């Protein structure tokens, strides 16, 4: 009874704040939504959000486009050209700014303000979601790409008890594992995986060099000594991977990794959700930050977001308001992150409960620390640092470099600069 009264109060307050909603209350709020999240832990999380939306009286119409994010973007582009965009869609990073120029979006400033949201989330994220000064999109969850997963059975075989703190220590452990017949690096061979391994190496060597080279595309930093060192390290990773991995997804290796036939995986926090979904036991895995030579934490950030497209239908506009409100709520974010293995966007969520993993707590602590020391970076391989064309051009160079021993690190660094120039046109 008490709960209901509180709901009633909240409802009245909302009505007072947004008279627009009051008029559209007559219709049932509805949302059409497209994303790439069709299965696995991502699919489960978005389905959970949909159920929650329905509990609040809405109609949830999700059309997933399985595959890469770009496949979903092709469908979105077709729908925008046809003049029939979904009420909301998945979209992330700098693409939010690019796409907001091709079709009208919904200004959700009043909702964000009412929730006092800006004070609660990392500032790197705020700018990405209000490209023209207004909130038009909302982040759903945050991942750290600089996460190191170590197989405890593999550690046991080589007598390692602690995670490496520097790349030198990492290389030592990998060499020991190789000697013991373990494949040291369990990553896959997809393009983004190739790119992510370089971003992990570079951010683990120098935070400033990463910001200059990857985020600001400073040609000097792109050819600088830190970048060369990172390229050398990336090639080491490649030599320690399964040689049969041509273009395989990292998840193919997870069973071998959990058994201890493979040693270390450098992957975003989402791998936790994938391991859980496979029926794997997270106790078999040590989850921590990747090595950092500077000895200070750094957080390479990847975030999934949702953008709201302008629709005239009253039920859709009501649905957008309801969805945006839900997405900023603590309990909704908790539910979402617990399903996928990410960390919530809000920094005021308590992660001490039993539904959170040590890996999530550690990542969240590192985020808060990096946030204070201005060492939050945006991921290249996951389209957070640059727009799609520039990212693709850079990853072309990286993937060719790690697979082709004839390209020297110096040549690869020079090619990166040319590729970026060329992609900018």
């Amino acid at each position, binding site marked *: 009874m008490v709960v209901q009264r509180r709901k009633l109060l909240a409802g009245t307050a909302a009505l007072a704040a947004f008279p627009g909603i009051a008029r559209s209350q007559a219709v049932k709020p509805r949302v059409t939504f497209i994303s790439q999240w069709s299965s696995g832990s991502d699919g489960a999380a978005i389905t959970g959000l949909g159920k929650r939306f329905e509990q609040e009286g809405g109609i949830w119409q999700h059309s997933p486009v399985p595959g890469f994010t770009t496949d979903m973007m092709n469908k979105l582009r077709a729908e925008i050209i046809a003049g029939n965009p979904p009420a909301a869609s998945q979209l992330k990073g700098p693409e939010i700014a690019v796409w907001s120029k091709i079709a009208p979006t919904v200004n959700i400033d009043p909702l964000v303000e009412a929730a006092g949201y800006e004070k609660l989330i990392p500032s790197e994220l705020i700018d990405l979601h209000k490209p023209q000064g207004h909130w038009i999109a909302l982040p759903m969850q945050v991942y750290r790409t600089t996460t190191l997963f170590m197989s405890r059975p593999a550690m046991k075989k080589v007598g390692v008890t602690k995670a490496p703190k520097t790349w030198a220590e990492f290389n030592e452990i990998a060499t020991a594992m190789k000697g013991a017949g373990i494949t040291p690096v369990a990553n896959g061979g997809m393009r983004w995986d190739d790119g992510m391994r370089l971003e992990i190496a570079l951010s683990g060597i120098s935070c400033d060099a990463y910001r200059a080279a990857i985020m600001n595309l400073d040609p000097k930093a792109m050819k600088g000594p830190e970048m060369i060192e990172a390229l050398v390290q990336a090639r080491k990773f490649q030599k320690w991977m399964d040689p*049969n991995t041509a273009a395989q997804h990292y998840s193919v290796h997870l069973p071998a990794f959990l058994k201890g036939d493979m040693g270390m995986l450098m992957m975003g926090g989402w791998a936790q959700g994938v391991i859980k979904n496979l029926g794997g036991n997270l106790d078999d895995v040590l989850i921590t930050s990747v090595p950092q030579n500077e000895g200070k934490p750094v957080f390479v950030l990847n975030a999934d977001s949702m953008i709201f497209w302008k629709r005239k239908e009253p039920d859709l506009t009501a649905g957008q308001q309801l969805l945006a409100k839900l997405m900023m709520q603590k309990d909704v974010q908790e539910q979402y992150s617990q399903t996928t293995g990410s960390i919530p966007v809000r920094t005021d969520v308590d992660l001490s409960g039993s539904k959170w993993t040590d890996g999530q707590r550690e990542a969240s602590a590192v985020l808060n620390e990096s946030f204070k020391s201005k060492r939050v970076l945006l991921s290249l391989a996951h389209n957070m640092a640059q727009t799609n064309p520039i990212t693709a051009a850079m990853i072309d160079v990286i993937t*060719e470099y790690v697979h082709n021993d004839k390209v020297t690190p110096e040549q690869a660094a020079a090619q990166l600069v040319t590729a970026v120039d060329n992609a900018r046109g």
Partner: protein
Amino acid sequence: MRARLGRYLPLVIIWLPLLINAAHVVGFTAWTTWLSFTPSDLLPEYSWAGVRSYRAVLRTPSTEIAYINLLLYSVGFVGVSTVAGFVLAVLIDQRIRIENLLRTIYLYPLAVSFVVTGAVWSWLFNPGLGIEKFVRGLGWSSFHFDWIANRDYALWTIVIAAIWRGVGFAMALFLAGLRSIDPDLHKAAQIDGAGPWRYYLRIVLPGMAPVAISVLVIQLQYAIKTFDLVRAMTGGGPGISTTLPALVVYDFMFQRAQLGRGTASAVLLLLSLLVVLVPYYAYAHWRARKDKAHG
């Protein structure tokens, strides 16, 4: 009434499909070409940007790799499948008993789609799953066959898969050609004392020239537009070592969402098809004139 219908019906039947086809093929080709000279990015824009997109496409390393690959792939695939197809056809033409069965077997790969072909061959070539593992299982433990994961050899795995699929088609065409040779010629050659070697070299081979041209042209245009086979087998990798022009078009168009560059590389691909088709039509034209002259 009926007479008028009879007069106009053929025109409608001829012109309607022709116009629809023209609208699709010519219309969209023209639109694509136009877009390639605009600054289009995420969405089409219709202002003039000159050859900017072409310059950018030609400067992209994947374009260069793609065209070198296309050259190697075309020569390897078309050359081997044509020669092997001819040899198979000659062998089957020896009035053997199970001809129908063999013909079906050789032609069967053509019924398998490129995606399935690519998937199956990618497993066969995968060192951890396919041939290497099989041979090692037989006891030869140092056997090494990792072409598909090796960027210097990966392209040849695609050539092998394409030959496997295409050789039956070449064989079928050559076989039909061989059957169309007048059997009296064979008898006449035997009477004149020509052995089988001489018979094939002097009588059959020249007679096969038109068939060979058809096979070459059909296989070559298959080669130029190859897309699904590579996508399914290597995804263009390792790195970008097995990318082909059609994959580059797709990459610009649908992965990077750069319409201007995507259309520019599509136009380049169309031009490379003309390299095949123009000599073919020149040849056909020349033949037609020659036949006419001979009456």
